[in-house]
């Protein structure tokens, strides 16, 4: 067993901060990489050592540059690399490269990343182990003609998925044969761009399911357990917005059944480290294996909150060769946790990213609230990375209590400078379908309004617009106001258009 003393964080943002917090607790030194895109990012201040890569002239971002990351790890004497999520987290070649260079990769083996990460192979493993799955193509689909043929056999609607995919990229639902050709090309092209692999396969599309996933930790000796489920049905274009644990759709019996199947699949793939087995659950409580993610996930905090287990710590211990100390019977689910992903997005413009500088930021500090963030006041949400500002995680005794606390917590968040997903969550926690738990993955598509504004809010905004107009046009006074960067003209610099009146 090799002790880990120094970890290079091959990531940025909140997950870099998250990993460094646990490493510090464990007495492990961390190295962060400073890039030209974000030279004053918050995560840098959490590291023991900052490697300056701002002079990097390579065309690919450093977090995707395998050779560069290995080189930095060697230069900084790192004995392990944590990839976080995204970037190189599920790249088998990168994991292999780390091992070749005598560096511990904090994650599963390159072999299981490859097998599980490739959905076509994962499906074969699942099939061999009698894991319930939606009907689909045995192999990757070569072309549009084959896609049409197979879809006819399965029956529409079907879903095209990228073999190496994740996060909704390279994924398209096809309801009619006439759309197949167009959508097949789009999905395949998107897959190639995102994962360097254009191969796609087809599956029967399960209508209106819930997205339920199980958290797995496993060690190198083959001990694998599950830490219960997460409910991630609140998604837009397959991007999760809110997650909770546990799920109100599962009872103890179903939880045990699905959990055991998740463990069985992970065992079959020789899996170790933290991983997630994703299922679709239909309205008759039939469940289907969808895919397994071989990384720590964005939504891991909700599981940590209800089990009391630090997943990053488990990843580090397992990577160092330690045995899992927790047994399945030790795992107790305690309370209810909800995570809201507060992103810089304009929900009124179809959740379009709204990058920019965070002018004001105030995040709540209460014992029932956990905030995982990689930004601070003055930070910039850059267009080249994801739009996450913070994850707001609340914990209650039960779901009702968690919802109540979530409502309170959302009103305590204060962000200025960028538009955020906050009004979406304010709507969500008041929506009857969300409250009663009957929501499915199509919830957002079925909404008429994506945000909540209490009565009279529009009237107050109208009052303010009127006040501004008066200040600009009818009086000599001016009031101090915040203006977004995107403003076209500063009203205070305008000539007073008194002559108009």
């Amino acid at each position, binding site marked *: 067993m090799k002790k880990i003393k120094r970890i290079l964080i091959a990531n940025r943002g909140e997950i870099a901060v998250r990993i460094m917090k646990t490493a510090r607790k464990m007495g492990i030194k961390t190295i962060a990489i400073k890039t030209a895109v974000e030279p004053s990012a918050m995560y840098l201040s959490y590291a023991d050592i900052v490697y300056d890569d701002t002079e990097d002239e390579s065309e690919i971002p450093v977090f995707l540059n395998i050779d560069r990351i290995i080189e930095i790890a060697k230069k900084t004497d790192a004995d392990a690399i944590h990839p976080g999520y995204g970037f190189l987290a599920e790249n088998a070649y990168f994991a292999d490269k780390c091992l070749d260079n005598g560096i511990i990769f904090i994650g599963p083996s390159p072999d299981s990343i490859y097998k599980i990460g490739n959905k076509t192979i994962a499906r074969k493993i699942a099939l061999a182990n009698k894991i319930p799955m939606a009907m689909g193509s045995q192999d990757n689909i070569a072309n549009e003609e084959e896609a049409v043929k197979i879809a006819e056999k399965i029956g529409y609607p079907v879903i095209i998925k990228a073999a190496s995919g994740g996060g909704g990229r390279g994924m398209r639902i096809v309801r009619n044969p006439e759309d197949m050709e167009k959508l097949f090309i789009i999905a395949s092209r998107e897959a190639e761009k995102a994962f360097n692999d254009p191969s796609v396969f087809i599956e029967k599309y399960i209508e209106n399911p819930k997205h339920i996933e199980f958290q797995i930790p496993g060690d190198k000796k083959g001990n694998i357990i599950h830490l219960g489920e997460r409910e991630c049905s609140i998604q837009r274009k397959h991007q999760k917005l809110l997650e909770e644990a546990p799920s109100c759709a599962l009872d103890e019996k179903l939880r045990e059944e699905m959990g055991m199947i998740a463990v069985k699949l992970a065992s079959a793939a020789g899996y170790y480290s933290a991983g997630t087995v994703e299922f679709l659950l239909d309205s008759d409580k039939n469940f289907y294996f969808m895919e397994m993610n071989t990384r720590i996930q964005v939504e891991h905090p909700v599981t940590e909150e209800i089990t009391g287990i630090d997943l990053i710590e488990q990843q580090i211990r397992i990577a160092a060769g330690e045995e899992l100390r927790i047994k399945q019977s030790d795992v107790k689910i305690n309370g209810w946790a909800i995570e809201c992903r507060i992103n810089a997005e304009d929900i009124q413009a179809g959740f379009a990213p709204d990058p920019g500088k965070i002018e004001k930021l*105030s995040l709540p500090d209460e014992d029932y609230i956990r905030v995982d963030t990689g930004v601070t006041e003055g930070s910039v949400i850059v267009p080249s990375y994801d739009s996450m500002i913070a994850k707001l995680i609340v914990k209650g005794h039960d779901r009702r209590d968690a919802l109540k606390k979530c409502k309170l917590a959302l009103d305590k968040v204060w962000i200025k400078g960028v538009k955020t997903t906050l009004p979406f969550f304010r709507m969500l926690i008041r929506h009857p379908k969300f409250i009663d738990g009957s929501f499915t993955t199509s919830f957002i598509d079925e909404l008429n309004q994506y945000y909540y504004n209490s009565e009279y809010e529009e009237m107050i905004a*109208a009052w303010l617009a009127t006040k501004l107009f008066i200040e600009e046009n009818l009086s000599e006074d001016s009031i101090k106001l915040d203006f977004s960067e995107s403003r076209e003209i500063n009203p205070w610099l305008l000539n007073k258009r008194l002559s108009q009146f």
Partner: protein
Amino acid sequence: MTTGKPKINKLYAISSQNSKYVFSLPLKNIIKIGKRKYEIKLKHDEKFGTYILWKNRKYPVEVVRSRQNKYEILFNDISYTFTIETPFGYKRLKVLSKQKGKKEKEYIKAPMPGKIVDVLVREGSQVLTGEPVAVLEAMKMQNEIQSPVSGTVIKVSARPNTNVVKDDILVEIKVEA
């Protein structure tokens, strides 16, 4: 105020969804709801920036855009656009809206900054409402840009593998009569 012209005694704030709010002048720091009056305060400090104090709660406010008499306001994280009109302007607007005909040309614009990965139409192509005209990649997602109208493509400004900013015109369409 200049003399000799009629004094303005009220202003109309018209939202983009055509809701109308009328405020009498001089503007009071009071909003009337039914018979009850509530005080409204516009404040600014270092910690919160500009905010509105209403019924003992702070709400963040920002001005996103202001152009002539049009204001886009961000209030409690939601954006509202208002056109402010004098009584005279309001009357004229009402007359104009009655005369307003159908749109002849539709400009399809980039809904967000990103990169055009594919252009799916050519000049002269016929498009139907909802038909994709281009594929835009933004924040690692590929999005189909669909035509909001049916008609004929008269100009294609979007080029594959070029970057666009928000509101760049991608395609011009002559709307079907």
